[in-house]
């Protein structure tokens, strides 16, 4: 049988939990970021330990000959990229001129901000990360986040002064309007995935006549206003009919490895 002090302590804990759970969402968000900011000194420590590990790895770096070969390959790649950049800028100028002739509104180029991934969600129920950019750096809630290769990663949710939380693709709170690059341009919504399949997501809300084949690319459709159009999400792996054949759901292999993210780009100006 529990004693009277035990009942008092139990009541206090339950009361505290109820109070915290029922706080207004903005107060809860601020409290969350406030408590989370206590970890900021440790983030520096984690960063320096990573640098230390990097330095240790550098000590056992490949031999000089290998480095020279890599250097040469990179130089060739840079030359190729320079040439492509020249071509792209020429195409961009041509595009702007044609838009002007047709009277179309010019597209604003998207701005990106590079952020480092500092923490991951410690619990197994969600798929989110924390990045080292916040409102001080011009980041707001619901901005698209892409990988260094340009594939979609997720969107920002809570934004603090110096860091932000990003909900990743496959999290139950991250839904993305997507379209399949096929002739019928089928539209669907990327939803949650299983707890163990971080490399796959489900593309739902597809029509039963959707012409889907494995290997077709899936990109953002731009609907919904959060994610800009034409950001690569992944490619179709397989499909299956649902709801007695009235709909179709497709499994999509993500173009980005969400477990190995170290840097991400936050897309601005949407």
């Amino acid at each position, binding site marked *: 049988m*529990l004693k009277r*002090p*035990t009942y008092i*302590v*139990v009541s*206090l*804990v*339950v009361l*505290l*939990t109820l*109070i*915290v*759970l029922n*706080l207004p969402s903005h107060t*809860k968000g601020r*409290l*969350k*970021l*406030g*408590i*989370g900011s*206590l*970890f900021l000194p*440790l*983030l520096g420590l*984690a960063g320096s330990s990573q640098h230390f590990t990097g330095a240790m790895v550098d000590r056992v770096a490949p031999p000089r000959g290998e480095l020279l070969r890599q250097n040469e390959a990179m130089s060739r790649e840079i030359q190729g990229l320079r040439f492509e950049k020249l071509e792209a800028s020429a195409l961009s100028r041509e595009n702007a001129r044609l838009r002007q002739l047709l009277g179309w509104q010019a597209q604003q180029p998207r701005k990106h901000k590079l952020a480092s991934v*500092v*923490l*991951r*969600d*410690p*619990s*197994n*129920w*969600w*798929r*989110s990360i*924390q990045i080292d950019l916040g409102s001080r750096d011009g980041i707001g809630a619901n901005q698209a986040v892409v990988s260094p290769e340009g594939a979609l990663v997720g969107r920002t*949710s809570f934004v603090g002064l110096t860091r932000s*939380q990003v*909900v990743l693709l*496959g*999290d*139950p*709170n991250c839904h993305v309007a997507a379209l399949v690059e096929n002739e019928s341009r089928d539209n669907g919504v990327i939803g*949650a*995935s*299983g*707890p*163990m*399949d971080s490399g796959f997501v489900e593309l739902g809300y597809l029509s039963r006549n959707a012409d889907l084949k494995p290997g077709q690319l899936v990109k953002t459709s731009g609907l919904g206003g959060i994610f800009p159009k034409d950001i690569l999400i992944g490619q179709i792996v397989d499909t299956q009919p649902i709801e007695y054949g009235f709909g179709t759901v497709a499994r999509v292999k993500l173009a980005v490895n969400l*477990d190995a993210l170290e840097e991400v780009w936050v897309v601005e100006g949407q």
Partner: protein
Amino acid sequence: MNWLNTILLFGAAFLAVFWEAAFSGLRRVLGAQIDFLPALMVYAGLCAGLPTIALLAAWGGLCLDSLSANPLGISIVPLFLAGLAVYSSRELLLRDQPFAQVVLGLAASAGVSLLTLLLLLTTGHTPLLGWGTLWQLAVTSAGGALVTPACFILFDWLHQSLNHRRAAETSFRADREIRRGRG
């Protein structure tokens, strides 16, 4: 338990949450992150008073939820209940037996995970669920079972290192002193 041990316990909870968020090597290998907080609650349940258990649950839960997409405060009650369950039957538990520590860690880790999941579903949230959740629960429970004895070893070592050692009892007794000489 003195104030130094309580501070150490709180510091350990803080570092444990940070480790879980910053290092995801185990998550990549096993598919689930191990939670150290239930193991700390078992230690606190066996060695600390009820106010310390409540404060540790609140502190650990808030730290965990602040770095997670969990609703803030959802982890407090499961952690506290794990500590309370151990505390209320600690006279019957063999605190120093590693097997007992393993079993308690296993039960606490599984219980905390299931209670958190239950609370999330009850409060209208939709966490990641599927057949893989069973594997994640197994990994979390097994991890908690292994971490709990390590927790006891660590805190016992810290206790010995940072506290004054108890003075060894001498065999001297004043009533058995043999007085020599004439005085």
